[in-house]
């Protein structure tokens, strides 16, 4: 069984029973107890559970947890975290960056806390929670009305547009809902379109972050043509024709290398 698959099963089990012990999980998934312990460590570092001797319990839903975005609503957390890792390495100290809405951009915000000096502009409410109060990060939130999309909160509307008229951005990170060779990058709703077009105008570099499940999919609103001069970050299991397409078009495509657990010794 893949480690990702195993993690999902453990999460499912925990959501249902709120707690679990190592022995049960090891029998259930027919892997050794040390492997289960490693898995639980991973889940704990993701903030989903608290470990105790011999097992783990699910964290309760608190206001804090809603804003800090529960990883459990998303079975692709590991993939997104790896994408965020690469994104963070492309950000240099002292830059002005924009982070769009969605869980992938949220994961990026978690990886940039160690940067020397950074200005972060965002319409992502969960990032507000994640990055506020840090000395090394100037956090600017666009105005606008709060919207909800698949469990995540973000700002959009005229107020947010006004604000973008006054700034310049080095690198803008955005996450479309679909990437398709024929239809280009697509997003889910119309309010986002106007906003992101504005971001693109004021940003000197566009970086598109999209996990592999977004590829070969199309959403309602076309946002950018597929051969837009951007940088793309995704996972290694993205369809081969996309790897080929972007390389041949001269568009840099970064893919994660799965950090699956060490080979069983």
């Amino acid at each position, binding site marked *: 069984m*893949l480690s990702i698959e195993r993690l999902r099963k453990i999460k499912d089990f925990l959501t249902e029973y709120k707690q679990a012990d190592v022995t049960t999980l090891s029998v259930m998934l027919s892997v050794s107890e040390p492997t289960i312990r490693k898995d639980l460590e991973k889940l704990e570092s993701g903030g989903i559970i608290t470990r105790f001797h011999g097992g783990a319990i699910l964290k309760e839903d608190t206001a804090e947890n809603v804003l800090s975005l529960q990883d459990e609503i998303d079975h692709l957390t590991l993939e997104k975290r790896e994408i965020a890792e690469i994104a963070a390495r492309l950000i240099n100290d002292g830059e002005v960056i924009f982070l769009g809405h969605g869980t992938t951009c949220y994961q990026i915000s978690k990886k940039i806390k160690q940067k020397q000096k950074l200005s972060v502009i965002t319409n992502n409410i969960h990032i507000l929670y994640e990055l506020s109060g840090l000395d090394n990060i100037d956090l600017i939130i666009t105005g606008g009305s709060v919207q909800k999309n698949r469990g995540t909160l973000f700002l959009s509307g005229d107020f947010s547009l006004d604000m973008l008229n006054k700034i310049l951005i080095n690198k803008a990170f955005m996450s479309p809902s679909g990437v398709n060779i024929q239809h280009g990058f697509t997003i889910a709703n119309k309010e986002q379109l106007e906003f992101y077009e504005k971001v693109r105008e004021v940003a000197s570099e566009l970086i598109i972050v999209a996990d592999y499940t977004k590829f070969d999919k199309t959403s309602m609103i076309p946002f950018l043509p597929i051969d837009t001069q951007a940088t793309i970050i995704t996972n290694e*299991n993205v369809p081969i024709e996309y790897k080929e397409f972007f390389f041949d078009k001269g568009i840099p495509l970064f893919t994660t290398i799965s950090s699956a657990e060490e080979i069983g010794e």
Partner: protein
Amino acid sequence: MSNVNILRIKKINKQFGFNQILNDVSIDFFSGEIHAVLGENACGKSTLIKIISGTMPADSGEMFYNESVIDTFKLSNIKNLKVETVFQGINLFDNMTVAENIYIKNLPSKTRMPVFIDYKKLNDAYHSSSRILNINIDPNIYVGQLSHAQKRLVEITKALVSDPDILILDEPMESFSDDETDLLYKILTEQKKLGKIIIIITHKIEQALKMSDKITVLYDGTVADTITTKNTDDEKLLKLISGKELKNRYPKIYAKKGTAILSFQNISGGVLKDISFSLYEGEVLGITGLLGNGKSTVGKIIMGLEKIQNGRLYINGVEIKQPSPSKMLKRGFGYIAEESIRNLIPTLSPSKNITLSNIKKISKLGFLNLKKERTIRDYFYRLFSISDRHKNVSVNFLSGGTQQKICISKILYSKIKTMILDEPTIGLDSSSKSDVYNFMNDFVSKGNSIILLSSDFSEVAGMCDRVIILRDGRLIKCINHTELTKEKIILYSTKDR
């Protein structure tokens, strides 16, 4: 000139595997002219020559000689038309004399049956032709005793004595001194006046400018331009050869340099002369140059496959007297030689190949743990998203891209910290290239290092933190990524002095 002969090629295409080597190439070659075909490594020059000389058919396109179509791309099909091609590399018999080599196709015989060579006639023939050609080499010396440049001259003479109508020379001035270049220039100018079509292949701008009347620049399999030599200069040609700057297509994360892990101190060995450099933790160090300029030797020296004649090699500050593959493996060095299949055992399965170099880890009391072997294979297949279809076949049935990934898996399984990759993407399709580049990023992000030996200048410009350029075995220049462009690499690797 009364009648000009024209060799015309039109819309020539050639593809190898996934790679389109030549793309709609059209050139006209006129008699009484020296026509240079100029381009960087792997731009399709050599393939073009093979097609023109008839050693390899094109996939599509046409060839004409004086407006008549040449069937099946074989110039030899035309009556009374003599074509001579001198390919790169030496094709002479070392244990025969100069004169014997030159007249090998038509050795004068003492008897009717060609048993005994008539040396008197042979030498007479040589002297009469060498007077015309101005070549000053003793005909009775064995070819094995000659220098590389002299051998080239003998080969060119061999081509000329049959008085060809079309003469094709692939990199004729390789390793020539100024005198020899001048001599060749004189010879070719004479031949040109006799109304011959002369085609020279070269990657050096100076040579093209000096020798030719017309220059065709090939870029990535297409004709960038055909220009009259008088109307151009080295700057314009450099622009044409470099083509588009594709540095940005490469997914590259620049690294923070750590401490030095490997140092060359004035090392000579193989073709290398007095090379000094260091490799730092976390970086991709590119070593490049035109083919045959010594980049592969760097890898071989580190792994102990080529002897160090002079100088010192340090790993983590400790001098290594006699490196060997097993010693270096223990110190965390992995090496993937050019052509991935050579690093594997073709008839074994992927799992056997991956575990081979670290077989102790999967065996107990002399028995292999096959289940473990499969687990390890599955791990790497997931890591590099290799299709499950490729699990139970021997590796020689796999594509180049998959083979390369298995090579990398194999050395990764031996827990290495420094990887030496020799032409890791040559012949790979775009998606496998993309995989290899992203793997390189991931590998160095963990504080490991890579030495990338590559003659693909775009790749080197795009994927390296620093690049060392070698020419004739010497270190010419080291460029940091902030100042790195493909144009600069071409400039330093081709420009003489």
